[in-house]
């Protein structure tokens, strides 16, 4: 009896165990919709050895799950990277901001700068077999108006209409030098009306005109794509694209070295140092669009005094930040905009580490060792290390900053309120244009994105002028004046521009890496 019961228990355990094993294989993934099932690879993918030639698949490590493939409703650089596999936009951008024809073969701008006419490429197919029509572009804009991510961009579009199947006319409310960037960058993917309306759970089954068809998404584990053979630009060289989710940099590094994976989308400096030693790998360390900064509330004491803000700028030991926070893999910054932005002018007012200057400014503002400042400094978990270094720098100029580290969502809901005096954070400059700094300095953005609650009527004016101006030289003039004012007023102390570090097998040809990621169409094996 006893033995029998023990046997039963053992059998029960085994059955639970095997039931689970069956479960995950059957229900573990969200399968692709009908239509793209033809070549869906079955079975497990035992990692191929890194004997390069002859391969047409690619395994890339990413560090987190993707919320949704409906790009209008998600956010993050990673989603953009995966999104550009599936979707195309009307124009494709070079890193310097020049637009190239993409889904639109050509475009015309009316003399008054308000009307844009796009001529679509003919015969472009969506993954569901539908042909790209002007009505899809109209549908995309109308759908975008509803989404929190696109509504701001679409607001400037007064009307959009399909003149015929391959011609779209867009009328803007006001002249915008950033129109092409906002509307046509990789942030504005073209959707297929039929697919969005017919596919249930569209965010899990995206359909676009891109080089890769979505196959499956096994949460926490891997995301698979396969080449779209009818891609208008030609069939891509890599036929099967697998993104493995590896939250740990060490794990991804080992997997790359042992040939389990072929590429790491982004890794950290510590892992990069190990990977650098490996001759079989290529390490790509290039400026990202991420800028780290301190924001000071210009409407409340003590930072309503410009001398204190300038002192903070002089007190930042940016080289130490580069060494400690970015482990050397970053560019030092003392102004917010990126040098690559069209319209960028290098400021004349610069801040380098100068403790004497900082101290004399503090003393001029009435602070001293016996009369120090004590404030709360907000930051999020991602920037804790940076904030600790900033705290150290501030302590040298009589500012005692008490660190309050919040989870990212809580931080976002608190950092733009009036009660925040001092904060350390970062921002991804998703639009490669000087107009991006509008969110940092425009007084209309107070309570929204303008953390220092900075308000200067001339700056607001210049921001409007810069956006409404199409002439390149005029724009540079406006932004040149603007940047001197904001450098002088110093509501922020910009700190650094960390590099994005990618690593991949040296037998891979990676033609080009954009600021927003790697266009997988350009990748092939030697």
């Amino acid at each position, binding site marked *: 009896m006893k033995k029998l019961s023990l046997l039963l228990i053992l059998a029960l355990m085994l059955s639970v165990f095997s039931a689970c094993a069956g479960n995950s294989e059957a229900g573990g993934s969200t399968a692709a919709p009908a239509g793209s099932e033809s070549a869906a690879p079955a079975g497990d993918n035992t990692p191929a050895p890194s004997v390069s030639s002859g391969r047409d698949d690619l395994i890339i490590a990413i560090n987190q799950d993707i919320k949704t493939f409906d790009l209008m409703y998600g956010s993050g650089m990673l989603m953009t990277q995966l999104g550009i596999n599936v979707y195309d936009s009307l124009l494709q951008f070079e890193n310097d901001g020049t637009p190239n024809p993409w889904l639109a073969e050509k475009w015309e701008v009316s003399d008054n700068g308000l009307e844009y006419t796009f001529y679509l490429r003919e015969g472009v197919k969506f993954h569901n077999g539908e042909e790209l029509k002007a009505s899809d572009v109209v549908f995309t804009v109308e759908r975008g108006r509803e989404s929190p991510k696109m509504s701001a961009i679409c607001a400037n579009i007064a009307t959009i209409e399909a003149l015929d199947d391959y011609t779209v006319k867009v009328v803007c409310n006001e002249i915008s030098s950033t129109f092409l960037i906002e509307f046509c960058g990789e942030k504005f993917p073209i959707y297929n009306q039929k697919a969005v309306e017919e596919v249930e759970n569209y965010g899990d089954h995206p359909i676009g005109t891109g080089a890769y068809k979505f196959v499956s998404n096994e949460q926490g584990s891997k995301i698979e794509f396969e080449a779209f053979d009818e891609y208008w630009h030609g069939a891509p060289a890599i036929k099967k694209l697998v993104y493995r989710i590896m939250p740990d940099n060490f794990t991804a590094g080992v997997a790359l070295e042992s040939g389990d994976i072929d590429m790491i989308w982004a890794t950290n400096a510590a892992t990069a140092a190990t990977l650098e030693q490996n001759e079989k790998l290529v390490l790509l360390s290039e400026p990202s669009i991420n800028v780290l900064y301190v924001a000071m509330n210009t409407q409340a004491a003590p930072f309503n005094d410009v001398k204190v803000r300038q002192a903070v700028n002089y007190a930042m030991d940016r080289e130490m930040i580069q060494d400690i926070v970015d482990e050397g893999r970053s560019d030092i910054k003392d102004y917010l905009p990126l040098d690559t932005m069209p319209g960028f002018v290098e400021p004349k007012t610069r801040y380098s580490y100068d403790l004497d200057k900082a101290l004399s400014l503090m003393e001029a503002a009435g602070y001293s060792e016996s009369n120090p400042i004590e404030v709360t400094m907000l930051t999020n978990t991602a920037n804790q290390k940076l904030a600790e270094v900033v705290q150290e720098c501030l302590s040298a100029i009589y500012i005692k900053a008490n660190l309050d580290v919040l989870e990212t969502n809580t931080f976002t809901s608190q950092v733009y309120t009036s009660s925040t005096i001092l904060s350390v954070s970062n921002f991804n400059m998703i639009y490669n244009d000087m107009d991006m700094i509008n969110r940092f300095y425009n007084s209309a953005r107070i309570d929204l*994105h303008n953390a220092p609650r900075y308000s200067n009527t001339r700056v607001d004016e210049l921001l409007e002028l810069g956006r409404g101006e199409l002439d390149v030289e005029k724009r540079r003039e406006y932004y040149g004046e603007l940047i001197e004012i904001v450098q002088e007023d110093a509501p922020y102390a910009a700190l650094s521009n960390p590099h994005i570090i990618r690593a991949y097998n040296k037998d891979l040809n990676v033609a080009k890496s954009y600021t927003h990621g790697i266009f997988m169409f350009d990748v092939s094996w030697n």
Partner: protein
Amino acid sequence: MIRYVLKRLLLMIPVLLGVAFIVFSVMSLAPGDPARAILGENATQEQLDMLNTQLGVDQPFLIRFGTFVVNVVTKLDFGLSYNSQRPVFDEIFTRFPYTLRLAVLGVIFSSIIGISIGVFSAIKQYSPFDTISTILALFFASVPGFWFGMMLILLFALQLGLLPSNGLDTVKHYILPTLSIAIPYSAGILRLTRSTMLETVRQDYIRTAKAKGVTEWVIIWKHAFRNALLPVITQLGNVFGQLLGGAVVIETVFAIPGLGSHIVNAIRMKDTPVVMASVMLLAFFFCLVILAVDLLYAFVDPRIKAKYARR
């Protein structure tokens, strides 16, 4: 016996309700705005307010808790994840099997290693075998699991290239994660087994058995071991519970899509539906494990079984 099991199963209801209440309160007290988490940084205040109303976040605490309980009890509906907008239940059940399999494997292997070596150490007390195994046990009990996992990866995956370092696709993939869970835990079980065995073999009835001329093998496995097993079973139950929720680090190091790392992410994102559902699931399984442990006592120890019979 069956009545006892039924009674215990019924008792799980108030326990789970209590767990739900505590976790729900903690999640409501924590700062943060679910609408902000869903819509992102660019959403306007109106969009945020609208979504919060839609989610029912602006309702009073007790009403929210009541709605949650009613939905779960009547429809087994834990809602949509704030973060991914996917049904929480689906998300959890794609991940839970990995966690469960690892936990079961971890318990099986740590008990095999821990108990067998523990018993032999006790029998051969002060022998070189005992000394070496005690020292090793002390070492592995003190080593952090993730470090041990990393070392295994570096040796077997990178240097020797024998085993895959990440994922759980084939049987081979299970070897390293199972070892890095089983070996540190088996160290604890080994020490416990050894000390309880040492205690038991000094009891009078063992001496009597020896005096009767019973073979050593029978004395150890039939008389001493079964008595020494009770605390070890309790410990195994605890280990299983810890592994269900706490293998986060191992899951991260081996890139396994388990539940542990999912919960940690959900807490970070203040994704209340995911946290609630995962914690409830783990609590449910933990209750089952504790029940199973209590029942195992009965099989191991006839005295306990007799007590059940009387009830």
